[in-house]
């Protein structure tokens, strides 16, 4: 079953019997040449068996330096090249391309670091540095002789995409891909798409009406013929690899036929059951059968079986006869080439720790709750009232960084709380100018366009900013007002303040579903518990799994514009694969030698990418089922190789004998000891 990644030595690899090594020592200007005696090094290396030519260049990476390599390959018929210069982490690709142009397999290059690891760190020990450079290059030469040709393999890519999570980030990714002509499956676990943004009243920094800008986008998603929305659905299994993921999606039963339901909500009118509505952060209620919110997409009802008392009133009320109490979950199997994860976040829950009295005092609420109160479509029709007596508060306090930038909870900054607090204070102040707002903060962070302006606007409106974190929050047992003791660290004085309502700017934290998604997609998590990108700077929406991308808050706190950009970025990254219809997978992989493998299976749990499988049938006449590496899944870490007791597993380019060649050549016999 093994595909032939490590091709036999073909002519292009120039891997004929004799190993002919060329060694190119770089001076890197004076960076290396100023410390290491490169001439002496080259002279010594020239005496090693197999070394046909050595060369010293001022800058090996320059055009002339590379030309020197290429000329010498031709002149001396070299089939292995050792470059002793700076770091392979930056320059290996350059020299690989350089030798590949000459028809050598790119893996015939060995890169030795005599700058960062030698001349730069032994600046005053020139002799020792020179000796060390000799050792390092000798190690490289011996390893080079054992290098084997490798070829990255190609796998076909199914030109369909799966987007998990239909918040603003996931929707954007789906739309962009669909507009480029690719079929997209958009899986959303809630009954409606839209995510967090659908719950806000207005969004910073411009304070546009959130649903007014999001609603049309949701409709656009629904109308796009290349997008198949799978709402109230969850991904249950993911198998396969880049280009060829097999995904099982479960459709939770809505207990009604979505093709018949018109979303008229007659059913909820008659339903006798009322339960707190989580969409409104628990404020207000909904029925056991309900339409999520007026702009929901798809605009369909959903029956919550847990709370339904089976009175059948809704079935009678429904004119289209949509309701079906016996509905079972449905499943769809998808085959897609790429997966975009945009599963969002939840807000920090201050209840268990009773941060700032939350959960103890009625009039301490979270910002998310405040957002719903502000919302005209929210539980109070847009009137901000306080929970204890439903009166409209005059004095409102805001505490920033709740569950963020705090050793006791989360040390990271959630990025959006300063801005949404500024927004929320502004919105209420504009609605009811008589109100009085105090924002208690540690630092105000307003980095992007229009943000600082929004901050200034709040100040101009009279919102007070107090630098300090409340040290004590108490409730007045009679008035239920909230009394706060806080040190104003700018004025250097303790202030005792009284508020009608205290709003906590709770931070961004991973939701409960993140582990499942992490495991399904085989991703890693960052220190904040959210999913991790391949590189924080240069590959911010890629992951370590080929063909899997991340957008939105799922990979770290961010605001809407940033989340949307990431959605587009994912679409663009994914398109490279979808359009080319092929993916290049790692050339360095683990390989099993079935003649040696004992079938013990200990390698399987070593692989974080589940790239190793046991064969279904015994190998030849051995009666033993052998291990097999799925090349497209293997990332070439080599961890399994370390565990394999027989040595049947080898990591190409880091084979045991290749590593040992280096180990052995750290040392040498010294004939005469002075």
């Amino acid at each position, binding site marked *: 079953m093994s595909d032939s990644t490590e091709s036999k030595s073909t002519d292009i690899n120039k891997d004929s019997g004799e190993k002919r090594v060329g060694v190119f020592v770089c001076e890197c200007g004076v960076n290396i040449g100023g410390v290491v005696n490169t001439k002496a090094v080259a002279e010594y290396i020239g005496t090693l068996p197999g070394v046909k030519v050595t060369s010293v260049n001022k800058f090996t990476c320059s055009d002339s330096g590379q030309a020197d390599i290429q000329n010498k390959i031709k002149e001396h018929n070299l089939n292995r090249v050792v470059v002793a210069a700076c770091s392979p982490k930056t320059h290996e690709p350059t020299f690989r391309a350089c030798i590949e142009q000459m028809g050598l397999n790119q893996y015939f290059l060995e890169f030795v670091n005599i700058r960062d690891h030698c001349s730069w760190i032994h600046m005053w020990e020139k002799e020792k540095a020179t000796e060390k450079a000799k050792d390092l290059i000798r190690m490289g030469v011996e390893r080079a002789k054992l290098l084997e040709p490798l070829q990255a393999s190609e796998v076909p890519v199914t030109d369909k995409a799966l987007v998990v999570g239909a918040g603003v980030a996931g929707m954007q990714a789906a739309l962009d891909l669909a507009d480029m002509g690719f079929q997209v499956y958009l899986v959303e676990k809630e009954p409606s798409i839209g995510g967090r943004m659908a719950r806000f009243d207005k969004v910073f920094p411009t304070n546009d009406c959130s649903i007014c800008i999001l609603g049309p986008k949701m409709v656009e998603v629904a109308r796009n013929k290349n997008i198949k929305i799978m709402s109230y659905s969850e991904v249950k299994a993911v198998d396969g690899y880049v280009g060829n993921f097999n995904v099982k999606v479960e459709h939770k039963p809505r207990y009604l036929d979505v093709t018949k339901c018109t979303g008229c909500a007659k059913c909820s009118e008659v339903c006798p059951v009322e339960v707190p509505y989580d969409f409104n952060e628990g404020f207000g209620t909904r029925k056991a059968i309900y339409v999520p919110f007026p702009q929901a997409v798809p605009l369909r009802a959903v029956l919550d079986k847990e709370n339904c008392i089976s009175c059948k009133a809704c079935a009678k009320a429904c004119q289209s006869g949509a309701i079906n109490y016996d509905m079972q979950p449905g499943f769809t199997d998808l085959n897609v080439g790429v997966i975009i994860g945009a599963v969002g976040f939840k807000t920090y829950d201050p209840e268990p720790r009773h941060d700032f009295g939350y959960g103890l005092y009625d009039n301490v609420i979270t910002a998310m709750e405040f957002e719903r109160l502000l919302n005209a479509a929210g539980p109070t029709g847009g009137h901000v009232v306080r929970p204890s007596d439903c009166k409209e508060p005059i004095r409102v306090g805001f505490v920033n960084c709740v569950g963020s930038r705090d050793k006791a909870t989360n040390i990271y900054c959630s990025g959006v709380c300063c801005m949404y607090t500024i927004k929320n204070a502004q919105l209420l102040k504009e609605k009811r100018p008589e109100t009085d707002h105090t924002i208690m903060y540690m630092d105000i962070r307003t980095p992007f366009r229009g943000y600082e302006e929004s901050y200034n606007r709040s100040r101009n409106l009279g919102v007070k900013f107090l630098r300090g974190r409340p040290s004590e929050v108490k409730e007045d047992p009679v008035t239920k007002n909230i009394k706060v003791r806080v040190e104003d660290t700018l004025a250097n004085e303790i202030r005792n303040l009284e508020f009608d309502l205290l709003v906590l700017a709770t931070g961004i934290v991973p939701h409960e579903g993140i582990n499942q998604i992490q495991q399904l997609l085989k991703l890693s998590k960052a220190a904040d518990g959210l999913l991790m990108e391949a590189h924080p700077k240069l590959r911010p929406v890629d992951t370590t799994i080929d063909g899997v991308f991340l957008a939105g808050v799922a990979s770290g706190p961010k605001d809407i514009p940033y989340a949307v950009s990431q959605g587009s970025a994912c679409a663009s990254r994914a398109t490279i694969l979808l359009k080319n219809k092929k993916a290049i997978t790692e050339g360095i992989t683990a390989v099993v030698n079935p003649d040696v493998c*004992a079938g013990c299976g200990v390698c399987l*749990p*070593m692989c974080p990418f589940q790239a190793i499988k046991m064969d279904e049938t015994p190998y030849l006449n051995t009666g033993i089922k052998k291990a097999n590496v799925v090349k497209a899944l293997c990332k070439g870490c080599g961890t399994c190789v370390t565990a394999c007791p*027989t*040595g049947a597993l080898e990591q190409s380019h880091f084979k045991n004998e290749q590593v040992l060649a280096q180990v052995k050549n750290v040392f040498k016999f010294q004939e005469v000891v002075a």
Partner: protein
Amino acid sequence: MSQDSQTIKTAHQIVMQKGEMYVGWSTKEDVRKRGGSGGLVTSMLAAALEKKLVDAVVVLKKMNEFEAVPIITSDVNEVLNSAGSLHSVPSNFAKLIANRNLKVALPAKGCDVRGIIEQGKRNAINLDNTFIVGLNCGGSMHPVVTREMLEVMYKIKPEDVHGEEIEKGKLIFETKDGKEHAITIDELEEKGYGRRESCRYCTIKIPNNADIACGNWGVTGDLAGKATFVEITSEKGAKLLQNAIDAGYIQVQKPDEKGVAARSKIKGVMEGLGKKWKDKVFVPMDNRLEYFRKELENCIDCGACKAVCPTCSCGDVSKCTEFHFRGDAYRMSMYHLVRFLHLADSCIGCGQCADVCPVDIPLTRLYRRFANPVQEQLKYEPGMDMRKPPFFEAKLEV
């Protein structure tokens, strides 16, 4: 007694269950006589074969008092003829049945059982198809040592030995002339004879890791020496015993309380003794490097110690052998270093390696030097349950 799905009903309405204990014997006269203590084990194995519970059985085929070869057989008569305990045959059956895909039943001392379970973890033995009849084991002796001991300590010719038994701490040999010769085991071991060193510090005296644990401890009164005490330790074990009863091969009765108490007391005493031996053998040492170097100096790289090791599932090619070159002339053997590490969690202390070494390197003692601290620290006992060897764990608090 609750009759849940795990119990096995029979025509006689006897219901064998995991956790129960019995005393039993073979219904076949000759097997009973030949048997170590009542021939129950032999009969149980034969019944399993006859009633097609298994396709094959492993037994020892006796050559003489000190020599026997293990055979895999499907012949019921061959099984019936194999009865008897051989204390000077320190074999290990784990590798014998590895990679053969057998439905098999076999007798197994504690270290056999542990080896079988370790092979099971490495996909070489399908434990669901393996019925393990555990034998209590106070220890076995190396045949060569036994012969020498007979001449030096007992002053009898090995050829004259007719039978052998252990009673009240004494090792008793019966000669063909019908005489008994007894010396205490303590005295024998004091002089370097008696049980193999690894058996002395072994603490698995009743193999509860098998499917059923059999032995003579706990058999009291008239039955002493004529019956076997069994403890059912798994569903498979219950099936084995029930099958033998149903087939009419054996009879059982409930043990008396005295017997049960005596058995557990003896077990405790033996385990305590084992621990004492362990402290005696593994004294802290200075200059260990020199010690290991000296001990391994004579190794001729024959590879026998790897080949016999019942926990190793590698074939001929393995990491320990492939990167070891005699020409390297290192100050320590690369082969053994890799094995010290690979066996640190998995060595069951069976003594096979030391037994087989042609240049008499006390290998088990060396290997246990590394295994003891690792297994203690990781609280890992190889071969006792299905826990994965820690070396192959993806995450572990270490």
